[in-house]
């Protein structure tokens, strides 16, 4: 499944989607950035409520397929611009983290 398809299937809001064709191969949930750095894998959909510029750096370094911001959290305009420059897919949803993870997990089965 691609990041674009994931967005469509779960009715996620597209904040920034420079690479809709990026393949989502797994998922990771976490808000503590070092924890994410240690555990997220390349191609993961990373679900978090953390919403600052450092999220963009971590997503870029971990090569996640997309960031999915839960509970309607958003990145501000400046950070989204950086995400676009760094070619990071950023989506969001009103759903809380757990529910998002369950839905993503079902899609990736």
């Amino acid at each position, binding site marked *: 499944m691609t990041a674009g398809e994931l967005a469509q299937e779960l009715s996620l809001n597209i904040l920034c989607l420079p690479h809709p064709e990026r393949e989502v191969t797994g998922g990771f949930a976490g*808000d503590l950035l070092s924890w994410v750095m240690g555990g997220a894998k390349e191609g993961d959909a990373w679900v978090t409520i953390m919403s600052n510029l450092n999220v963009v*750096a971590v997503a870029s*370094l971990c090569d996640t397929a997309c960031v999915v911001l839960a509970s309607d959290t958003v990145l501000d305009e400046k950070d989204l611009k950086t995400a676009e420059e760094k070619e990071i897919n950023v989506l969001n949803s009103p759903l809380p983290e757990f529910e998002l993870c369950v839905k993503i997990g079902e899609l990736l089965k």
Partner: protein
Amino acid sequence: MSAPLKLHFDIDGENFTSAGEASVKVKKWLRQLGLPQDIIRRVAIAMYEGEINMVIHASGGYAEVTVFPDRIEIILCDKGPGIKDVELAMQAGYSTAPERIRSLGFGAGMGLPNMKANSDTMKINTEIGVGTTITMTVNM
């Protein structure tokens, strides 16, 4: 033999939002050099954690990354307060990061453990009131 390839970065200790810039640049550079993906990832993660530590604890410093034929060496040097108890700091989950930093998603106490996990060797030279230099290598 050709000279090793080296990059130098000054890490700005004041600017929390740009923290990680050097690591992202290194990652891009190593990609351009055509190094294997898993090596690049390990270097990028180890360096990012070090970079963040320098911003949180030491008001910045500098980083140097050198590509040798058999390994990549990362040196992180700061003039911060030094690490009081290295063994304790190496424990997963132990953190001295202030609340302000935790609210940004840092301070999980996983920085040094992640650096160790993603490098093949890691040496910490630290002196209270003088600073800390960490040298890591990632073998190719």
